[in-house]
């Protein structure tokens, strides 16, 4: 098939038909044609015929497909939006079809880690080095020939985007060109777009905040008020900045939309999946029960285990993450964890700048 992406009117692709992927596809469809990939043929059929997915209506500009080759031949700009667990696999499947002129902007707030066979992230003796931890842009660079990569991050709750509420997002990439293309594809009367060249920090901000959303869910689930929530958010911000700095990132992005913006949204909205997990744990459900009844992945669970390892290896003060970890994986009661945090000697305020 001949390439048709030299045209200004080439469709944009969204890979992954989860709730956020669907919201992004609808957003992009307001500016042009969208090819929407789902790995499930039945889902493709439903999207194309019934024009519904993940509880959202499908914009007329969207066509679903489960042919990755078609996507890469017809589109030059791709938005992968799959869970971090599946991300590397999807990139490997895409790799054979991608060309050096493709651009990819991912929407996944999660880490990928490479461990030796038989080792799990929960192993007590595991020392996790920063080089073992991959952000999604690093996975894209490692698994494909595409160099022009970026990410979309910020306070973007899928349900609110689906409801067409106004919002703002950050397109981060080292390449001006990727930011320009991403901005042109996404910007609309309901989506403001900001840029950032520090893609690593933006990605870390988007991932590390997931742990805090779990804690916020617990605070919310226990019915504590806004004082406690503000306490958690500000100390949580300090904690994720310290962690990110220990991983070689700069602080600046954490004070923008992709950092504090995303943290506030995810810690204060019951719509967030991570928040929901925390709230359910506070009400006495176990992690196994929650996972068994969840339809989509809460990245926060994986993030907490990785963040805890980073804090241990890099000797970073991270009492919130250490306690969420204990609640999730070591059967510590949520109330006990909160008691610990209330008795913890935090010392100086704003010690992360």
């Amino acid at each position: 098939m001949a390439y048709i992406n030299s045209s200004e009117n080439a469709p944009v692709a969204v890979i992954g038909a989860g709730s956020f992927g669907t919201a992004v596809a609808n957003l992009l469809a307001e500016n042009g044609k969208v090819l929407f990939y789902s790995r499930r043929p039945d889902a493709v059929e439903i999207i194309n015929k019934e024009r519904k997915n993940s509880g959202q209506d499908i914009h007329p500009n969207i066509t679903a497909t489960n042919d990755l080759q078609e996507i890469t031949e017809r589109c030059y700009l791709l938005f992968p939006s799959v869970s971090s667990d599946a991300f590397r696999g999807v990139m490997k499947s895409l790799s054979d079809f991608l060309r050096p002129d493709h651009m990819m902007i991912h929407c996944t707030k999660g880490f990928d880690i490479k461990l030796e066979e038989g080792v799990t992230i929960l192993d007590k003796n595991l020392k996790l080095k920063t080089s073992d931890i991959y952000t999604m842009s690093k996975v894209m660079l490692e698994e494909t020939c595409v160099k022009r990569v970026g990410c979309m991050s910020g306070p973007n709750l899928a349900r609110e985007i689906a409801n067409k509420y106004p919002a703002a997002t950050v397109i981060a990439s080292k390449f001006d060109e990727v930011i320009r293309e991403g901005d042109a594809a996404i910007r609309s009367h309901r989506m403001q777009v900001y840029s950032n060249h520090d893609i690593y920090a933006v990605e870390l901000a988007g991932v590390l905040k997931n742990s805090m959303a779990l804690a916020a869910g617990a605070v919310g689930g226990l019915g504590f008020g806004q004082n406690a929530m503000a306490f958690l958010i500000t100390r949580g911000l300090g904690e994720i900045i310290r962690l990110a700095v220990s991983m070689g990132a700069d602080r600046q992005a954490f004070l923008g939309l992709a950092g504090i913006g995303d943290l506030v949204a995810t810690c204060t909205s019951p719509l967030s999946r991570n928040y929901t997990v925390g709230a359910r744990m506070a009400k006495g459900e176990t992690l196994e029960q929650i996972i068994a009844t969840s339809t989509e992945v809460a990245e926060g669970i994986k993030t907490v285990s990785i963040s805890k390892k980073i804090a241990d290896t890099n000797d970073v003060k991270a009492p919130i993450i250490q306690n969420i970890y204990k609640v999730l994986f070591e059967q510590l009661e949520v109330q006990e964890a909160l008691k610990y945090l209330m008795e913890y000697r935090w010392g100086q305020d704003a010690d992360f700048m």
Partner: protein
Amino acid sequence: MLKSIIPRIKDWPINLIAKKKDKILQETISESILKLNENWSSLPQLREQLQKTLYLENIRIRSESWEVDPEDDADFWKKIRRQLLEADPSKIDENKSKILHQEMLQEIVSRYSNEIVAHFSPNMFWFARQLLVRIFARLFNSHFGGFKGIFNPQEKLKDKLIVAGPVEKLRQLSLKGTVVLVPTHFSNLDSAIIGFGMDYIGMPAFQYGAGLNLFNSKIFTFFAGQLGAYKLDRRKKNPIYLETLKSYSRTNVIAGAHTIFYPGGTRSRAGNIETDLKLGLLGTVMEAQRIHFEKNPSNLAPKIFIVPLTISYNFVLEASSLIVQQLKRIGKEQYLVQEAPQVAGKGIWKFFWETFSKSSDITLSLSEPMDVFGNMLDDDGNSLDKSDNKINIRNYFLSKGQLKADDQREMIYTQMLGDKIVECFFKNNVVYASHVVTFVAFELLQKKLHYPDLFTLLRTSEEFREINWDDFKASVRRIIDELYTMNNKGILKLSPRITTKELPEIIEMGIQNVCIYHTNLPIMRNKEGNITSEDLKLLYYYHNRLLGYGLHQFI
């Protein structure tokens, strides 16, 4: 010694390009002027830059003039000063002023280009090769005795100067495109050693940049001046000089000159493998590749191949002076010392003598060749994606199907290439026993003394420098175990001299090899059999070689 891949020196790209020197110079000058005019499109901007250049050049002439500087240096810049006054746009017609400014720019760029340009003489190359072979014969003869060494020096040389990695692939690629060798940089001798190593594996000669200061030496000028070395003047930091240098480099790479770039910029002062690369000259390679695609159909566009190279020495000729420079730089007022010791001709002779006459060696460890985007290559030089499918790298320069220059995009591509080069430096670093013993000794000392900063540690008096032998041995064991794991994972390469020996032998060899060259020993065993050091700065310098692998965790 491998047969030269292009048998006649006269047919080597460097010689063919040397014959077109005038054309290369013309292109360099016109390209530089074009670029500079793009940057400074208005007369006030150009005038300001010319004034700035004049100012900086006057400072250089006053404060740091060298023997190699042309005799008319001061007169030339006096003339430019006068011309600037005469061309003042507030006093003469603007169009006339513009013309005069362009003439000045032309004169300066032309002067710089003529200073930078490399020369190559096939006869001189042949002569230098014969001379070096005889020097090596003399060295081996002194050690191995008899006539054997004289008649067959190359037999022993292969144990002393090891060129490791994809040698045949590199040779073949040199016929299919332009090879840009990007080595780590520890010593001023690197270029000579790499040059000899590349000749040894039958590669045609490379063009390379040599610091203009080296041309203060008449012997160096006599040889290197005609062996493809172009001149880099690190005193000149004005934008006109830097652009001319870049244009010269780009023009040569486009013309097909196999080139050596040191991406670290200067020698590694701290003794570590460089991680912070200077990407200016490397950026010209990216640009050259794009220009090839602009000027040629995709399938005929010449390709540029990048080959990182990690050099491993047991000891470095200028170690003492380099580490002093480094400590001055990072310590500022905390580190006040006398001038750094300089290396004289005698030192160079001693370096070669100790390297080639005793149980020491040098490894030139080649990485897998890659394209300018860091993609792997097949044997024919085709770029491959992660699944080994062929890809057309022209597409990296496309925007919506159109090939066009984009400076910001190319700058990021160059940064990415830099990251890839650093990764290769580390992966192909051949670890010697001397690196291990110095790393362990310094780390143990740091752990034992617990000083808050490096400078206090380096001032530790001799009586407190002692490290218990058993502790030392146990730590070396742990580090070697970890190095084996890393070697198996492809994170680095262990020297066969380590993999074929037992621990006591490794330690003895390591200490001996790093010490044979230095008067004050960086590491030694004292009367009690414990480890100590006569020169902590040197110990620190050699220790730094293994930084970046996270090995301190295993001490």
